Each structure stands twice: as structure tokens, then as C-alpha cells.
């Protein structure tokens, strides 16, 4: 039994789990990190990272067999021969889509911290106050002042770069210098400054190093991040937090270990450990600890709580409120515009920048919109057309080849990332009568966007068109695509924080209201969805919760 007892257990090794591991280990806790996926060693296991297109099967094109094995994962923009190994086999890891929901994920050490889009903006009080002011969902139990020092703490360690927005809606950050704009982006930035007072184009805040930091980076301009970075230039658990945790000597990292449920002691009202099924041998083992951090990703952490049932908690651990599994959110990015520009033909670029430009939110910041609540920021991309512009034409021959081997005109693309309001009926639940090979009940997901999101998406398109026209871009085409929930890969909610145990699952320290030694610090804690990419906030609140937990533990209060 001795080797199965730790001070802390962390479930999951991705964005949040890596941070929990680092913080708890550095504070002296013997910590077991359980990862349901396989081992994936930093650099050593990035087997496709430096492959040229012609060294990959079919010049990096996915095959019909790939798509059959990964029918959901293969629809992702990142998916190709070089990255397919980072994503799950959909047939092996089935879930029930009560409504269509794209669940993109990787089961391996590091989780999605290896394939994330790396954008790291802070939330502001505009975000933390919105639910309370508008009477939507429940109020966030924290404000910007509570999280601000933890954003500082995380940004210093992960290393991020960008053009510091320093706006009320996008607070000032600790950033390295941004990556350079293209000639077209500089032009658009200038045009926006002339045409608008409330809109600007900036370089996104991104967890990619533009300068060396602690022996990592800088970015080498490959833009093949999702293969894994041999230069450690972007933040991942594998390259940054897990090595820091391991360096303490307090870390035990155990892959291939899926957590079935938590072990709850009703007399003590504490969780005493976790039940783990070995992914390969199917053998069940119990591990024990004084505190548990759930960082298994939104849908999986909540599933573990829902699957921990007994007399005290018949509907899932800590589910006195009935809100566990509810209020699922994702962003929506269906609205935007494309354009071209026939000028600046004497300017080009070198290298492949791995970040977007960004247009910060301007709706419902200082003004009040009639049609919808909240707002959106835009990612913005530009480049000169390459050979692919010739695929869809009738041309061929020497003149055609000469033309398409030279840089084409500029093309420009923007899409909004809109806030989604929390709704009780967007939810996940388990089918306890339908078990997978590991004995875990089937997960059901049901989510749809509502009127607020649809009204917002229309405005996202119209604003994008207006901005492109104001910048005198050409062939401006707006779009407003329907979005399948899950597609932005920002699953949030299902175990929300709040002040009142009657209406929320977690308190202001990511601690279960009902069971004080369980902390949930992945996207499931989210109360609203803001417009910003959420990972930075998961990291900051994980570090904050770890600090709180260890303090309480030392005081004998857990």
C-alpha cells in the first residue's frame, strides 16, 4: 500500500495538470500524475517534427484509412500525416452525440498542450462582472484583482510574446516583443487607425517565444507546432511544466492510467484516493492521497465526478446543486470575411509565423448593443497566395507554371471568436448502463448555440466586411458559417464556480463546495466563456488553487 499513497494526485497531464504538478511538487508534495494516454517524451517522441513534406506519406495528405480511423479528428484544420498521431482514434474513444459535437483531443502525456493554438489573452473585469450584471447564469466568485498576480506568475514562467494590448477589455501582460507584421498587416493597421477609434489590429499574445527564455526557443519559424517543438519554443506541459515538476524529485508520472472514479469517505467527508484502470491490462488499482486535483479536461473531469456516486452523492460527487454536467460552452467562430489586395507586390516575408494578428473586442465594451450580449475578438491572417491558387483553375503549361511559382497577390482572412452564454440545457451526462472496455459509462454530449450567439455571428460577419472595406481591401466576401459545437476546442463549464453551493459546484478557489480536498482546475470550472482563448486562465487559476490547497493542507484544514 505504501507506494500507492501520495500527498497529492493530479488527474491529467495537459495544460492544467502540468501546472498542478509543477506547483504541488515545488511546494514539497509527493505528487502522482495520472495520464490516461500513452507516454510522449519531449522532443524524443516528436517523430515528424523535422520531416519535409516529401518525407511524409502522400506528401502529408491524409488517407481514406486515416479518416476512417479518426472520422472526427480528421476534420480538424491541423490534421495531416504529420499530426495525426497526436489525436485519438475516434473509434476507440467513443462518445454519444445527442446533438452534433466535435470533441478534438489527444490522449498522451501533455494532452492538448501539444496541439493548442497558443493564444494567451487575459480576462478582465468586463468578463468577470458580466454574468452578475446581466443576470446570466451565476456570478463569477472572483474578480480581476484575484487572478491578476497569478497571470503575472504564469506569464513569466511560460514565456509569451505579443503586442501588449493593455486595453480595459484585454489587460496588460508580461510579454516578449511581438512577431513582425507583414506589409499587408502594417497597411491594414494604419487603415484601421484612420477609419476607427474603437478597432485596432495587433499581434496576438501567444505562448511562443520570440526571444530565448531559460534555454528554450526562440521560435524558428516552422509553424509546425502541433508536431511538437524540438526547440521548446512554444509552451507545452511536456517541454515546460512537467520537467519543472520532475526536477523536484517529487513527481511520479504514470501514463496509461484512466481514472474510473474517486474514492469518497462519507464519515470524513473527504476523497481518500482514486480508482485507476490500466488502459492496457484493464487491471484496477486504488491510489490514495490527501488532495486530488482534477485536470483531465472539461468533459473528462466532470465525467469522473459524475461517475463517483454513493449514498451522500447519488448524482455525482459534489453535485448538491444539480449543476454538475450543465452549462457546457464553447466559443463560436462562424462569422468573418475574406479579401484580397493587389498592392504591395514588392513586399514579401521569410519564415512561417505561428501566430495570428488580432482585432480586440469592441462590441459591448463601452457601448450597449441591442441585438446581443457580450462580444468577440477576431483572429486575422494574411499572406501572399502560393501555388495552391492554381489548383482550382483550368490553366496548365509553362506560362501557368511560371506564374504560380511566383508569389501571388495578398489574401486576407479574419474570423471572429464569440462569447457563448452559459445555458443549463447545454450539458453532458453518463449512461451508467453502457460501459466501455475500461468499465467507464458512456458520455453523452448535447449542446447547441442560442439566439444570442446567432445574432452575434451575423454582426461578426458584418463588422468584418465593414473593416475590410474601410481598409480598401478588394473582393471582400463576408461569411457566416454554421458552427458545430466543440469545433473551437474550448469546451468550458459543466462544473462551474460560484459563491452559492446551491447553484454552483466549485467555490472561488476551484474547490468542491461539498468536499474540500477536491479541486477542479481545467475548463470545467468556467462560469462564462469570455471571447478570449481560455488556457491562460486555466493555468493561472490552477497555480492559485494549488497555492490555496497547500496552505490549507499545512494548516491541517483539509
Amino acid at each position, binding site marked *: 500500500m505504501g507506494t500507492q499513497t501520495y500527498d497529492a494526485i493530479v488527474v491529467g497531464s495537459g495544460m492544467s495538470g502540468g501546472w498542478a504538478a509543477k506547483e504541488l511538487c515545488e511546494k514539497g508534495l509527493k505528487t502522482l500524475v495520472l495520464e490516461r494516454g500513452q507516454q510522449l517524451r519531449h522532443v524524443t517522441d516528436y517523430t515528424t517534427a523535422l520531416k*519535409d513534406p516529401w518525407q511524409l506519406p502522400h*506528401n502529408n*495528405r491524409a488517407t481514406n484509412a486515416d479518416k476512417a480511423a479518426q472520422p472526427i479528428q480528421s476534420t480538424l484544420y491541423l490534421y495531416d500525416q504529420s499530426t495525426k498521431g497526436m489525436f485519438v482514434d475516434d473509434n476507440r474513444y467513443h462518445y454519444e452525440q445527442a446533438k452534433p459535437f466535435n470533441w478534438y483531443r489527444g490522449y498522451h502525456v501533455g494532452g492538448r498542450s501539444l496541439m493548442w493554438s497558443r493564444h494567451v489573452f487575459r480576462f478582465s473585469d468586463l468578463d468577470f462582472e458580466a454574468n452578475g450584471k446581466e443576470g446570466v447564469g451565476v456570478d463569477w466568485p472572483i474578480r480581476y484583482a484575484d487572478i491578476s498576480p497569478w497571470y503575472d506568475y504564469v506569464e513569466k514562467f511560460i514565456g509569451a510574446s505579443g503586442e501588449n494590448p493593455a486595453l480595459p477589455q484585454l489587460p496588460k501582460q508580461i510579454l516578449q516583443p511581438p512577431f513582425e507584421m507583414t506589409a499587408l498587416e502594417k497597411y491594414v493597421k494604419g487603415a484601421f487607425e484612420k477609419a476607427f477609434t474603437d478597432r485596432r489590429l495587433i499581434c496576438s499574445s501567444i505562448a511562443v517565444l520570440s526571444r530565448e527564455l531559460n534555454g528554450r526557443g526562440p521560435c524558428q519559424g516552422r509553424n509546425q507546432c502541433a508536431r511538437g517543438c524540438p526547440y521548446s519554443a512554444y509552451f507545452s506541459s511536456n517541454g515546460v511544466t512537467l520537467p519543472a515538476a520532475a526536477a523536484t524529485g517529487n513527481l511520479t508520472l504514470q501514463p496509461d492510467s484512466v481514472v474510473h472514479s474517486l474514492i469518497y469517505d462519507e464519515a470524513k467527508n473527504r476523497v481518500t484516493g482514486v480508482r485507476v484502470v490500466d488502459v492496457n491490462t484493464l487491471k484496477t488499482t486504488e491510489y490514495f492521497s490527501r488532495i486530488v486535483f482534477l485536470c483531465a479536461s472539461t468533459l473528462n473531469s466532470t465525467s469522473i465526478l459524475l461517475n463517483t456516486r454513493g449514498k451522500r452523492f447519488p448524482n455525482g460527487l459534489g453535485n448538491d446543486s444539480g449543476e454538475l454536467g450543465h452549462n457546457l460552452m464553447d466559443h463560436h467562430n462562424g462569422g468573418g470575411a475574406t479579401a484580397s489586395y493587389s498592392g504591395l507586390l514588392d513586399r514579401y516575408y521569410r*519564415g512561417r509565423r505561428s501566430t495570428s494578428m488580432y482585432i480586440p473586442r469592441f462590441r459591448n465594451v463601452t457601448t450597449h448593443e441591442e441585438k446581443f450580449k457580450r462580444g468577440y475578438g477576431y483572429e486575422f491572417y494574411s499572406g501572399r497566395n502560393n501555388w495552391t491558387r492554381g*489548383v482550382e483553375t483550368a490553366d*496548365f503549361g509553362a506560362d501557368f507554371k511560371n506564374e504560380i511559382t511566383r*508569389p*501571388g497577390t495578398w489574401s486576407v482572412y479574419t474570423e471572429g471568436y464569440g462569447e457563448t452564454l452559459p445555458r443549463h440545457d447545454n450539458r453532458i451526462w453518463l449512461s451508467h448502463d453502457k460501459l466501455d472496455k475500461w468499465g467507464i459509462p458512456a458520455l453523452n454530449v448535447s449542446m447547441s448555440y442560442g439566439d444570442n450567439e446567432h445574432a452575434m455571428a451575423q454582426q461578426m460577419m458584418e463588422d468584418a466586411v465593414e473593416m475590410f472595406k474601410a481598409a480598401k481591401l478588394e473582393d471582400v466576401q463576408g461569411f457566416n458559417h454554421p458552427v458545430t459545437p466543440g469545433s473551437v476546442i474550448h469546451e468550458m463549464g459543466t462544473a462551474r464556480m460560484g459563491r452559492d453551493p446551491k447553484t454552483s459546484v466549485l467555490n472561488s478557489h476551484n474547490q468542491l463546495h461539498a468536499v474540500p480536498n477536491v479541486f477542479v482546475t481545467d475548463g470545467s470550472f468556467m462560469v462564462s466563456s469570455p471571447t478570449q482563448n481560455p488556457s491562460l486562465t486555466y493555468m493561472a487559476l490552477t497555480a492559485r488553487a494549488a497555492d490555496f490547497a497547500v496552505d490549507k493542507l499545512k494548516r491541517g484544514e483539509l
Partner: protein
Amino acid sequence: MGSAALGQVLTAFAAAPRKATTFSESEMRTLRALVDMILPATDSPAASAADTHYFIDLAIPACATPAAQKTFRSGLAAFAGFDQLSADKQVAKLKSRAAADMPLSYDESFFRILKDYTMTGYFLSEIGATQALAYERVPGGFWGDLPLQPNQKAWAI
């Protein structure tokens, strides 16, 4: 095996004609002529010099949808003997097929499928990416706003 003998084996292997896996020898001759008609030798080698027809031979069965595969096979059959035609006739035949095919959906259009796989096969090959285009595996950074050099090639990716 001594190194001299190994050398002979390697030389023989390199000289041996490459075998196609999907298409017949005559179909491969047709395909070779078609990819070179789309992307002929210019200041960089022709598509066939990068084995683009062999790329297609492997990629069509692996990557194309069943409908596109069917379209491609029957389209290729309709071009039987294409390699025997004069250059002028080749141009005219491919032009007329392009005009007929462009309005069709991708899966129904032999020309669009052929062009897609020809371009992917060539421009992402070592010859296409590094001679017809410009390619850096590890650029070493990002320079956002540089003057375009005379006759500068576009980046392959």
C-alpha cells in the same frame, strides 16, 4: 557482402524502372505525359522528373474518395494513347477536357482531380519545393516585411 558488391546492387536498383502499384504501364505513360503537360520543364524540372506520376499512382487509391477514384480511372482511360500525340494535339485535348470538366464537382471532374494531385505531388516533392519554389525546413525565425527580390520564387509552404 563487400562494399563493391553492395555498390553494384545499389546501381542496379537505381537503374531499374520504377514499378507502379495501381496503374498499368500504358496508363503510367499516359499519366506521365499528362503531368508534364500541366507542369512542363521550365527553369525547373518537369513534373515527371519529380516522379509526380508515381505519387499519383500511390495517392489516388489511398487518398481520393471512391467516387473520385472512379472518375480518375475512367478519365485516364479516355486519355489512352495521349503520350503518342503531337504536342499541339495534347494541348488541344487537355484544354477541351479542362473546359468540359471545370463546371463539374470535384469528384466528377477528371481534370480537377488530375491537377490537384499533380500539383500536390510536384510542389511538395523535393525537386518541386526546392527548385520550382523556395523551401526552408527550419527558417530560423520570421521576417515579416522584406523587399521581394527580382525573380524570387514563392515559398512552397
